[in-house]
């Protein structure tokens, strides 16, 4: 099976590799890597004769806030449950259960939202869709280009730069591509105001 071989080859540089349910998701392998490893990953897939279908981005603006809210909600729910358990225990005359030590309330360090860069790879003879994902911070969205490995990535990366303002370092030409030649905006950013 192709995906097993690729999984092994990629596992050394990946943060996370998961095999997906193809019928539900539409791809076989979901690989998360740090941004500085994209060239190495592309080289591995190139050796395995994969072709590049597309490169694109996703703006996760507001994700950290939503995560923090969710965490706070979960913490509140846990606290409530503990209080209720203590109350119940007091009513039944049992010694109150040991209070879980609440984690020291450190003021949550604001984590910055990120752009996700998604690379779709596929294989001509054997069906094996590999999705490579990486995250770059929103204020310095930079990662290396893979256009020296896959010349086809040149245009995809240029388009991603147009739409999101993600900078692919070492790319030969990141001037506006689909947008007007004097465009200085990035329309697929979630905070874009026309």
């Amino acid at each position, binding site marked *: 099976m192709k995906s097993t071989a690729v999984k092994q080859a990629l596992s050394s540089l990946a943060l996370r590799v998961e095999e997906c349910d193809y*019928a*539900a*998701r*539409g*791809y076989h392998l979901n690989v998360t890597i740090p941004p500085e490893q994209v060239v190495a990953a592309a080289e591995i897939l190139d050796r395995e*004769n*994969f*072709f*590049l*279908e*597309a490169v*694109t981005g*996703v*703006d996760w603006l507001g994700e950290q806030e939503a995560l923090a809210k969710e965490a706070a909600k979960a913490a509140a729910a846990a606290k409530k449950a503990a209080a209720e358990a203590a109350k119940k225990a007091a009513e039944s005359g049992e010694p109150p259960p040991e209070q879980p030590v609440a984690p020291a309330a450190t003021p949550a360090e604001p984590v910055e939202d990120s752009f996700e860069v*998604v690379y*779709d790879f*596929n294989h*001509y*003879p054997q*069906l094996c*869709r590999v*999705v490579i994902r990486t995250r770059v911070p929103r204020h310095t969205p930079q990662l290396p280009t893979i256009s020296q490995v*896959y*010349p*086809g990535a*040149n*245009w995809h990366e240029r388009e991603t730069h147009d*739409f999101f303002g993600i900078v692919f370092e070492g790319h030969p030409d990141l001037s*506006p*591509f*689909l*947008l*007007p030649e004097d465009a200085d905006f990035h*329309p*697929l950013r979630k905070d874009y105001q026309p």
Partner: protein
Amino acid sequence: MRPLAADPAHETFILNVGPQHPATHGALRVKLTMDGEYIVEAEPVLGYIHRMHEKMGENRSYPQFMPNTGRLDYLSALCYNHGYAGVVERAAGIEVPERAEYIRVVTVELNRISSHLLWLGAFVLDLGGFTPLLYVMDDREQILDLLESVTGSRLTYCYFRFGGVYNDIDDDFIVGARNFVKRMREKLPMYHNLVSKNIILRQRLEGIGVISPEMCRKYGATGPVARGSGIAYDVRKQEPYSVYSELNFDIPVYEQGDSMARYLVRLDEIEQSLRIVEQGLDKMPEGPVMAAKVPKAVKPPKGDYYFAAEAARGAFGVRLVSDGTTTPYRLKLRSPSFSNVSLFGEAARGLLLADALALFGSLDLVIPEIDR
């Protein structure tokens, strides 16, 4: 002083083709660096028909985006309907009744034939042959009439719905489609006699604009461009969606990689599509054409989904990122011609200008789909 200018024999100049040029079939511009009649560097300049469909997707509900898909590649709009319906059905877990799947396949293949026919006419017109255009318009008209009777439109179809199709086909359509298959089978040898065997055409296409399989892979080319270079890749065969796995058809592949190979792939594909239409009509089961329970407001669960469909020009892929609401969070449209035309710069290097235009035509570009 630049080294090139030092030697007048190597002096180059810039030639601009388009954006308004009959050979570019839409508004595409190519910046050519020429050494006399020969191309040193070719750089396509895109964006003249850019409409930002992907942003529109983030601003409307799932069903509201369906008409947009027909405006990407207006020559094979139903293939694009299929790709988008497919990704939302996969994400939301909507089952499509069998009859609807067969109707989808039959209409998509008719649409593919009409797209290939128009390409044939326009391509030969680029090379200076006017007559085939008139013949293909006649044949294509039959398909447009058929599709108009079920979909309600002639070009930018919006016929598919999540969970089925908008309208059932009637007996007139079935009879009309069968008649068309018969008519087209009789016409195909005529096209081969008139066009494929034409010595002028052959000399303009054979051995010209060769694209190697390795170049296809490096640029991500799919569809007839890859199949003309010996790569037997077709989404309908490799990851069969809809009911393609139950139908019997071949994937035409030519090894040469020249413009003629791409030409022959498309002509053979017309025959294969006719086979699919015929079988689809034979096997068409009775039953509903819409799933019984499709929610009015489609809300796919949070997550990231991908679906690919074989359009007339190659693999059309849709990546959908859902945040669980009635609007897509992100909708990436991977259009085949975007990748196919990206190899033009490399493939055209060293060609005569006239041959480069033949290569250009053989890529079968539809600009609104590249620019999106």
